[in-house]
């Protein structure tokens, strides 16, 4: 019988690392997509995904299956993404958007297209919390309440973040087209 995510996490909390492996296999894509879209850098996204799952493993013995695992995962990845952007910056995609890449940017989250390049640039210019709200809404299709829960803010604040993010992004795209 296929165990639910929540059951797997309870097993993980009892020291079953095979259960943990299964959780990682099931949800690495979700964590990766959020981190990569938010950060714009696969290398940084990989660090965030690893850190997120190891945090989940460390906290597993205290896990109570009161919320879905996916909600928990969104919360952990979101906080790590925001914390990552608050750290003193080393060189990053955000700081060097025009960095030439002799290999034709094989690692970039962007894959061609002027409109997508502008969109990526516009996203990178947004404040981190606005960008994260957009990623959670448009890529993970979370409701306002789920975004609020993942980011640890009120539903009203989530709605307001989204509105400001969309306005700023549209203005940026229009100004550069």
């Amino acid at each position, binding site marked *: 019988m296929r165990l639910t995510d929540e059951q797997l996490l309870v097993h993980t909390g009892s020291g079953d690392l095979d259960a943990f492996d299964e959780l990682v296999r099931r949800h690495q894509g979700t964590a*990766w997509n959020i981190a990569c879209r938010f950060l714009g850098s696969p290398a940084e996204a990989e660090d965030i995904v690893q850190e997120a799952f*190891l945090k989940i493993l460390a906290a597993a013995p205290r896990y109570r299956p009161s919320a879905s695992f996916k909600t928990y995962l969104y919360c952990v990845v979101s906080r790590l993404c925001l914390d990552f952007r608050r750290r003193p910056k080393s060189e990053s995609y955000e700081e060097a958007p025009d960095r030439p890449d002799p290999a034709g940017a094989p690692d970039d989250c962007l894959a061609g297209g002027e409109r997508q390049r502008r969109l990526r640039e516009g996203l990178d210019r947004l404040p981190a919390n606005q960008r994260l709200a957009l990623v959670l809404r448009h890529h993970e299709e979370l409701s306002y309440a789920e975004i609020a829960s993942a980011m640890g803010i009120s539903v009203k604040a989530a709605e307001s973040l989204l509105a400001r993010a*969309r306005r700023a992004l549209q203005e940026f795209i229009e100004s550069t087209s």
Partner: protein
Amino acid sequence: MAHCPDYRRHIEAYADGELDPARSESVRRHLAECDDCRRRLEALSSLASILRDLPVPAPPANLAGRIGAQARRRFGQPPAGMPVDGLAVTLRWWRQSVWAARLAAATLLVAVCLAGAYSGIRLHDFLANTSPPADFASGQPDPRQIQLDTYTNTFSFLPQGSPAKDYLALLGERE
């Protein structure tokens, strides 16, 4: 009819499917009549569409394996076949249990301890207050030895070195 500003602030929530059915229907009727608000909705839909289409590379093929390896390095795991430390399992169970299960376990533990202490006191009193048969040659069994044997048999499942076994051995030596 309400003016555009009354609706405009709801258009995003409408596009996101966050309005209740009545308000959603009201906005939908307004959109059918208002070009400005309809253009605003179309702009939002277009933005949503290009955001959704923003490509993302697939995660590295060995990402899950690397996370699993790091987990094992950082948190370790007893080798296959090795029994997990009983105290660690008990502590983990305690941390993960709901308060009702903890209360039940604590009550059971106290009850077992009290029952053990009570039995020990009874046995001690019995041995202290009962005289051996006056005439050993009569072949009458010693009631104190019978009682002691009963307790020893009752606790035969206990491992050597447990406090209960030691206590019974001590009483036996005294007799």
